[in-house]
């Protein structure tokens, strides 16, 4: 059955496009329950964007939660397959606190996870699908990518204490170089090392300009392996080169994510609409031997892109009276549908309804009666 265009809103059209995109690359749909045992989230609170969760007690006394996240449930409910790769995609609602209203909000997410023996090809395929997902939403989109292994290697080489690492990562995510001086002075990091971190903060651009710069900037540090990995992944990508920018302001919790992390932005939407990364450390925490990478597209912001305001609520209004034969109404509605138009059949036109055309079945009836008389 072909669904007419007018029946779908912007987000629904995007969902169809993304599902078809992921299916083409061998990702299978993953359905899950709306609820999950609260314990799963209690043990991995830092992995969640917000630690506020809607909970309730199930009939068997277990404390349950409305899913604030999909990735944890997929890992929990999947087999550990370190020798092969599993690829799944999902289209689920999650429940999170909205920053503005401080109340819970239902957010539609579409995303995918690839876990098991994840290699360079799988990683670049996930990145390529992230780029294609953004392009499916808007041509004016950019994927910011960072490599946490590079940052961790720099921190290790500079002997930065663990308590200061989170603060420095936060400053990197804010592109905040002015406060970096203060923190680096507090931990007695010398000026040349502080300058290297500042240069990392200011690094942003495509692979052709950034990769040689990074090799040069970090040549004395033990970062080559991570830069090589980033280079290999980006060089394996197909045709998405132009929209990928290396930028270290994309950071995630290093207790869960270890290498590639990325965020997708679309012109006209003020925050990132796509977020993902490789989370081998989360897999380790959940006693899995396999690696994993994935991303989610947040659909709640996309309605801001839907600029095609419909100038009417319905194309045609079919007015019928108390004595109109229901079969006449039904056949009229079918005829209008055949023309690809929407129709509201009613006895009285609702207040404030906007429509293009009116079909008055009462008048037709009177005319027919007069003709028959």
């Amino acid at each position: 059955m072909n669904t007419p265009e007018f029946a779908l809103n912007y987000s629904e059209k995007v969902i169809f496009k993304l599902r078809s995109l992921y299916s083409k690359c061998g990702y299978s749909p993953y359905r899950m329950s709306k609820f999950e045992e609260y314990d799963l989230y209690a043990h991995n609170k830092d992995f969640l964007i917000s630690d506020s969760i809607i909970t309730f007690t199930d009939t068997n006394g277990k404390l349950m939660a409305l899913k604030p996240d999909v990735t944890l449930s997929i890992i929990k409910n999947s087999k550990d397959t370190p020798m092969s790769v599993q690829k799944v995609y999902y289209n689920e609602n999650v429940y999170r606190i909205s920053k503005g209203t401080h109340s819970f909000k239902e957010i539609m997410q579409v995303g995918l996870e690839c876990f098991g023996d994840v290699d360079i090809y799988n990683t670049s395929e996930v990145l390529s699908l992230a780029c294609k997902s953004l392009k499916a939403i808007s041509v004016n989109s950019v994927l910011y990518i960072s490599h946490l292994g590079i940052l961790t290697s720099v921190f290790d080489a500079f002997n930065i204490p663990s308590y200061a690492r989170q603060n420095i990562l936060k400053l990197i995510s804010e592109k905040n170089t002015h406060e970096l001086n203060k923190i680096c002075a507090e931990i007695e990091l010398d000026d040349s090392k502080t300058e290297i971190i500042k240069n990392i903060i200011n690094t942003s651009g495509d692979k052709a300009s950034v990769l040689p710069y990074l090799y040069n900037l970090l040549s004395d540090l033990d970062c080559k392996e991570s830069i090589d990995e980033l280079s290999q992944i980006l060089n394996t990508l197909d045709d998405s080169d132009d929209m990928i920018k290396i930028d270290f302001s994309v950071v995630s919790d290093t207790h869960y994510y270890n290498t590639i992390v990325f965020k997708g932005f679309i012109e006209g939407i003020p925050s990132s609409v796509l977020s993902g990364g490789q989370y081998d450390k989360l897999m380790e925490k959940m006693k899995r031997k396999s690696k994993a990478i994935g991303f989610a597209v947040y659909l709640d912001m996309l309605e801001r892109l839907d600029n095609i305001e419909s100038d009417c609520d319905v194309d045609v209004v079919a007015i019928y009276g108390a004595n109109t034969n229901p079969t006449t109404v039904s056949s009229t509605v079918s005829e209008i549908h055949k023309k690809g138009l929407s129709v509201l059949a009613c006895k009285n036109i609702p207040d404030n309804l906007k429509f293009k055309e009116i079909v008055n079945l009462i008048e037709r009836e009177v005319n027919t009666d007069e003709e028959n008389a």
Partner: protein
Amino acid sequence: MKKMLNVALPKGRLGEKVYNMFEKAGFECPSIKENNRKLIFENEETMVRYFWVKPSDVAIYVERGAADIGVAGKDILLEYEPEVYELLDLDLGKCRMAVAAKKDFRDNPQKTLRVATKFTNIAQQYYMSKGRDIDIIHLNGSIEIAPILDLSDVIVDIVETGTTLKENNLEVFETIVPISARLIANKSSYIFKNEQITKIAEEISKQLEA
């Protein structure tokens, strides 16, 4: 094609000083200096649109993309933790976030400390880092009278000269963090209007170094 850059400025004297910095950076908009009650000013030549907003709202305008860049106090950034880039410390509007109390105040660690403040997040994080048990009393203004009326033991508030505190028989016991105005940018605008935002940040940075 160059796009219009939206800039949220904090109403008041700080905002006027900040505008002068933007003007020197090559993003002038002469109509902003006209004496009227307008809140939005646009210059199609420099492709910049300024608007005056309440200082505490600048971060919201920028985070939500109504403004591409703006100038907000560090106090607001620490309190609301907006998802924005913090590009420059403008070295203006300097003051500090401090703990103040009556002159004869002595902290008794055996009791829960009652803290009156407008900045509940900053106060909570500060005392959490010290492992101190506190009771937050959220007030919207006249914070200084809370210890005098025994509503709280201490207050956490912005201190500029300390005159208001002195006049109310209070004094600063600890400084939590120095505060000044910061140039912030929306993360998405930073990508899609990168040339203009980078130029402003670079030009203002030069002014600060001079």
